[in-house]
């Protein structure tokens, strides 16, 4: 699949389409795939409503678009931003493991948040209206900044030079974000379809919601431990 997409990218003459394809290719890379699995689980946990899953995926993608747009700004306006590149690419892949573990542990309510500002935010998120997607937005915002080597090269090495040279300019990081989010949205919606088919056999829908949240938390923690283990092997 990646080979097909890279061939398409080679033949593309439209910057917006190239940026979108680059995003899709990036989302299928080995190091981004593992974090995408946890995101699919997070978005798909509201599987009772396919509409909510789809909207959640869109809001998550919007969060990513905001991050990519903001990071591209200094480069687009000609600022010397090598230090920013170095920081994001160096620490991104080291922090993703612990970040996933912390999010999973917080979802299981095992970890009390010590900082008053953050616990206020958590309370707000928990008591937010059912239609609120703030957690999806924040997840997209933060995960977009967790650059691994592969996604770092795709973004800083390929996308940003295109962004600077193209007349479409800062629309390209947004197209890139849509590309990175598409696979997540598709898989999350597929899970929602599958869950709804299975859920007809479950009478206690409320309880399955709680268990779904726990499963998602375990997925986060499991992938976080895997990522952390990979980093520690090299230290």
């Amino acid at each position, binding site marked *: 699949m*990646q*080979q097909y*997409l*890279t*061939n398409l*990218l080679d033949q593309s003459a439209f910057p917006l389409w190239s940026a979108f394809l680059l995003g899709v*290719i990036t989302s299928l*890379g*080995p*190091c981004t795939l593992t974090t995408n699995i946890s995101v699919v689980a997070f978005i798909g946990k509201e599987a009772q409503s396919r509409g909510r899953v789809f909207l959640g995926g869109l809001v998550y993608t919007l969060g990513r678009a905001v991050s990519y747009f903001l990071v591209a700004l200094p480069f687009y306006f000609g600022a010397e931003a*090598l*230090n920013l*590149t*170095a920081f994001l*690419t*160096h620490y991104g*892949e*080291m922090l993703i493991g612990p970040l996933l*573990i912390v999010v999973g*542990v917080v979802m299981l309510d*095992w970890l009390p948040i010590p900082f008053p500002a953050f616990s206020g935010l958590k309370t707000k998120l928990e008591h937010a209206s059912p239609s609120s997607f703030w957690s999806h937005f924040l997840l997209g915002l933060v995960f977009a900044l967790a650059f*691994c*080597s*592969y996604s*770092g*090269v*795709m973004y*800083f*090495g*390929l996308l940003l030079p295109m962004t600077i040279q193209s007349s479409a300019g800062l629309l390209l990081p947004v197209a890139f974000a849509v590309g990175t989010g598409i696979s997540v949205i598709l898989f999350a919606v597929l899970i929602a379809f599958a869950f709804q088919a299975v859920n007809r056999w479950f009478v206690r829908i409320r309880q399955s919601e709680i268990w779904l949240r726990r499963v998602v938390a375990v997925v986060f*923690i499991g992938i976080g*431990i895997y990522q*952390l*283990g*990979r*980093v*520690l*092997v*090299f*230290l």
Partner: protein
Amino acid sequence: MKNFLAILLLTVALSACQRKPAFVASEPKMPEAGQTAVYYFRTNFICETCEAVEDIVQDELDSKFAEELKSGKLVFRQLNLNDKETADFALQFDVVFKSLLILKPDTVINLTNEAFLYALPNPGKLRHLLVESLEAVNSED
């Protein structure tokens, strides 16, 4: 919670026991006159794609440029960006993350984008590009 902490500590311990030996980094320096250098700037931590790039480059150089490697006309060096000296050396090429460069004293070819784009989905293309770039650089002599 206790079980979770136990699993986490076990993972950390197992990772420490299975620690991969640190790669032997080369000294950062420009190639000599008449010499072509293929530099792979990496860090201690290496991802699957990064490893694939390294393996493909090493394999291609060993198979297609064995004589040049033996005579020293061509060198392949892995440089550690976690070392300050290497990080400072890399800055002259605007390199701050993992990168693949072909260097001669007055020529720089940056193959990073193509290397990471093609290493896993289309390694043949990367091999071809590497050989093509090296032949182009050496034909300038």
